[in-house]
């Protein structure tokens, strides 16, 4: 890698490679694709939250003028799903609908309006089943089952892990705190509605353009459901008009248009309405949490027991991973010597929940950071000082065997304390104004792939042209976060070029090597490291030829300003284009490959596959609020945030990711809710989405956005390309608890629930006035039949990463063949 002081691209704020396309409206999103002879698809969706399909008659729709094809469940019966352990979706439901919006049939017609019209001509006979509205109902209602798999009844997944004797930890504590919290579900709300276009290509194979974050997994699902060789399917992820996790699952509409294109031999397009996007969902799981934490008088944590009850919605989606994630990262911020986690995900008759920015870790982070605020107050320690005392440090291995790399959490805290003038504000502002602080950690890429195997998580191929052009081929998917710019920036820096010199071919399963997709904050470290390796290999080849030509030792060559030259005599050199020609003459056609596989994790217990990461980012935030005690109305004038990023590859984009995370976190903190209600009894009494529209699903506008003061901590992490860690998700996490803590500072009331609305504040104020606990939040945690915990002694108790009561697994080596996640 070039020396830091010589870097021309990395670390320099600059226009992203795809900026011109975006500001001229030329970025081609999936719905911008119009092809000759293209026809349109609409889906008929269930009006019932839970029902058997007794009969579907599509004959009238099929006979409607302009209709070319009607598909129903029997045409696509093979089950699929993002996780190997949750293959529980059908592109069109065969005999069982599980939420309002579940698709049962598809009409493909010459015009979209005709297809829409013909949906009314499909006759479906349903037998209504008992609706399960929330996890409490799911626990109490084992039948009817929403799915015929899972733990039992309507429990999808139950996990229980114990790292050290947590009861011993509580016995050693001076104080033990028990708190329950509720985190409401919310949704991604990308401005682009999901869209796909499929064709049978001229050779008779399938090509699909789709707004997907994970073309590789869509590729797998299509091959499975359509029973086609993967080599005959090409998936092209179009740039996503916002993803945030909402386009990470393979979707029914994608499979339906692929099937229709193959049947009709015509291009078929589908574009969801906004209402349908709410039914696709895969957003934040509603989670009820109970934290029991023991501390010494100085704030040292002696043990923590976390229980989570998770509302999964109607399908598995990423839910098994989400369940583990609700307990995974508690140990990565503060030292917790003994830790017990129990999580339970239930099925309910609502659109499936899945991964949204911060996947599964956001909800328990809220609880943990609010509880720490309560602990600090009880112990009379400033909450910033308390966190500094217990913050994890670099290279630690946590109780649950996650190996940390560079950790700059303490520095993040010190920075926001200083920039926000914390010491002058905390508990010192007038009534109605307050500040709150919270911290977080997040993965820089999931350490294990969804399908366990030994292959790389990302690959990059670089092609060198005789004219000096460089093309990057990689499966990485541009969802707005800047993945193309990450690749171009790294390669340009290594080869001494500008990003404008580089062409990108990304998100295409035919053209580029596999990259697993834009999820888990993995692109910068994984595709970035693959690009770095490919670029360095290409440079080495070119350097060898140039060294020979110039008669200079190759170690003395420098690649900069589109030249390759002798460091000691810079005038002695060749242009980059000449250098490529020299190399091609010497070695033949020049190309370079790079790939990246994360380091092995020491977490060898069952369930230890969720949470390990090559390295973790850290964030601290201070939020200032003004709350009107008469109305409960909250405004947020300022937020200070410090993010431990390792290295900002393009500071302009990094700032955008931080501010975008703050924005989205503020929406979750104050207003966003994926809420449901029952229709009146005299109607169907069905459980329906309360407001599947952008007007009623409140999200922050330009008028709601506070000033944000962002600081980046740049200590390069040896695991990241040029030292870079993630930034797309981590900075969201501290915002919600910091708001809750600030509301307490302002009015002395605890809102142990997200979103924090004026109504809840008024209720808490009324409690306070009545002399009761000044709090709004959930009461008891319901009874769950937990399985026996897997007992994993932490590293400091001599543990080796295995569970002591899971002998068969400990005896086995890590499986060589593809193994399913957390099966």
């Amino acid at each position, binding site marked *: 890698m070039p020396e830091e002081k010589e870097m021309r691209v990395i670390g320099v704020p600059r226009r992203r490679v795809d900026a011109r396309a975006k500001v001229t409206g030329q970025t081609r999103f999936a719905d911008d694709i119009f092809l000759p002879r293209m026809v349109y698809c609409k889906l008929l969706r269930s009006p019932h939250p839970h029902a058997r399909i007794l009969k579907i008659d599509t004959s009238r729709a099929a006979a409607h003028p302009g209709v070319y094809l009607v598909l129903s469940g029997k045409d696509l019966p093979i089950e699929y799903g993002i996780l190997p352990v949750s293959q529980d979706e059908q592109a069109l439901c065969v005999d069982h609908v599980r939420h309002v919006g579940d698709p049962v049939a598809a009409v493909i017609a010459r015009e979209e309006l005709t297809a829409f019209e013909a949906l009314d001509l499909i006759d479906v006979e349903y037998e209504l089943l008992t609706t399960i509205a929330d996890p409490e109902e799911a626990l109490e209602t084992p039948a009817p089952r929403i799915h015929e798999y899972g733990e039992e009844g309507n429990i999808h997944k139950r996990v229980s892990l114990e790292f050290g004797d947590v009861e011993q930890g509580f016995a050693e504590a001076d104080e033990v705190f028990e708190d329950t919290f509720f985190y409401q579900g919310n949704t991604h709300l990308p401005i682009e509605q999901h869209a796909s276009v499929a064709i049978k290509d001229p050779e008779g194979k399938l090509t699909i353009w789709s707004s997907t974050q994970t073309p590789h997994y869509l590729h797998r699902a299509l091959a499975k459901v359509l029973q086609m060789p993967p080599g005959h399917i090409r998936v092209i992820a179009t740039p996503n008009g916002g993803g945030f996790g909402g386009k990470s699952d393979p979707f029914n509409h994608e499979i339906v248009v692929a099937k229709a294109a193959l049947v009709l031999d015509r291009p078929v397009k589908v574009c969801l309405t906004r209402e349908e996007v709410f039914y696709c969902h895969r957003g934040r799981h509603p989670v009820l949490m109970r934290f029991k934490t023991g501390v010494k008088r100085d704030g040292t944590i002696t043990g923590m027991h976390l229980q989570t009850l998770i509302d999964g919605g109607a399908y598995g989606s990423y839910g098994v991973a989400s369940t583990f994630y609700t307990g995974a990262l508690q140990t990565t911020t503060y030292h917790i010597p003994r830790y017990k986690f129990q999580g339970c995900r239930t099925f309910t008759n609502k659109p499936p929940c899945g991964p949204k920015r911060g996947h599964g870790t956001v909800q328990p982070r809220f609880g943990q950071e609010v509880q720490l605020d309560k602990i600090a107050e009880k112990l009379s320690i400033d909450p910033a000082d308390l966190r500094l005392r217990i913050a994890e440090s670099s290279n630690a291995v946590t109780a649950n065997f996650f190996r940390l790399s560079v950790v700059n959490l303490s520095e993040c805290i010190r920075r926001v304390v200083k920039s926000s003038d914390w010491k002058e504000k905390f508990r010192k502002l007038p009534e109605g104004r307050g500040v709150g602080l919270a911290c977080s950690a997040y993965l820089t890429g999931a350490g294990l792939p969804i399908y366990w195997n030994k292959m790389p998580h990302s690959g990059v191929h670089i092609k060198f042209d005789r004219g000096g052009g460089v093309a990057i081929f990689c499966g990485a998917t541009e969802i*707005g976060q800047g993945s193309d710019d990450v690749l171009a920036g790294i390669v340009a820096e290594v080869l001494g070029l500008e990003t404008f010199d580089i062409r990108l071919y990304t998100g295409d399963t035919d053209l580029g090597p596999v990259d697993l997709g834009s999820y888990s904050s993995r692109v910068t470290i994984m595709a970035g490291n693959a690009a770095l390796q490919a670029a360095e290999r290409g440079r080495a080849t070119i350097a060898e030829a140039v060294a020979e030509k110039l008669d200079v030792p190759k170690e003395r060559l420098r690649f900069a300003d589109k030249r390759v030259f002798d460091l000691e005599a810079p005038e002695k050199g060749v242009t980059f284009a000449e250098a490529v020609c020299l190399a091609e003459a010497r070695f033949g056609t020049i190309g370079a490959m790079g790939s990246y596989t994360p380091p092995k994790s020491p977490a060898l217990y069952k369930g230890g596959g969720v949470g390990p990461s090559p390295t973790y980012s850290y964030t601290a935030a201070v939020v200032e609020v003004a709350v009107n005690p008469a109305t409960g109305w909250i405004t947020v004038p300022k937020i200070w945030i410090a993010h431990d990023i390792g290295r900002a590859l393009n500071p302009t984009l990094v700032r955008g990711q931080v501010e975008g995370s703050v924005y989205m976190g503020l929406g979750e903190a104050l207003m966003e809710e994926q809420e449901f209600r029952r229709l009146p009894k005299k109607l169907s009494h069905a459980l329906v989405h309360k407001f599947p529209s952008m007007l009623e699903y409140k999200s922050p506008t330009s008028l709601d956005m506070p000033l944000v003061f962002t600081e980046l901590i740049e200590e390069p992490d040896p695991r990241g390309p040029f030292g870079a860690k993630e930034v797309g998700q981590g900075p969201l996490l501290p915002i919600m608890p910091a708001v809750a803590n600030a509301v307490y500072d302002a009015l002395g009331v605890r809102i142990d629930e997200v979103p924090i609305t004026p109504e809840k504040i008024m209720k808490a104020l009324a409690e306070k006035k009545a002399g009761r606990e000044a709090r709004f939040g959930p009461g008891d945690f319901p009874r769950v039949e937990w399985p026996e915990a897997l007992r994993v002694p932490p590293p400091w108790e001599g543990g080796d990463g295995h569970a002591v009561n899971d002998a068969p697994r400990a005896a086995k080596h890590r499986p060589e063949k593809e193994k399913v996640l957390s099966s």
Partner: protein
Amino acid sequence: MITISLPTESQKTAHIRLILNGEETDVSFAPYKTLLEVLREDLGHTGTKHGCELGECGACAVLVEGKAVLSCLLLAVECDGKRVLTVEGLGADGKLHPLQDAFADLGAAQCGYCTPAILVTAKALLDQNPHPSREQIREALSGNLCRCTGYLQIFEAVEAAMVKIAAQSNSAV
């Protein structure tokens, strides 16, 4: 069951002439279509986006007679003879508009989906008020949802473009 037969898209019985990005443009289309649909489907101008088609998100904003309007709520038949500006018409003489340059340089476009509408809305603001305050910019863009940026880099880009446009018009005088 009675089926209501709506006019189909291929029944292009409506016809208008509009000034689209400075060019006199004739177009025939099904009479029920919105300006958004006619721009994207009948005129191949896909730069204008949609996020709800109900007037909620602002992604479809275009300028009609210099005013920002939601093209998903406007029937195309109402636009006969009108001047319509979309993102495709922002640049001139092969150069980007200062707003486009500033948005590109300052990170104001992330996924870029809401960007075309925000650009034309910002242009309408600057045309009408060449020196808006931060508050006026926030107000002007409050009907355009952006899910990526957190808006701050958008405000800064509008301010940077404002300075550049003012400098250009000063040097022109």
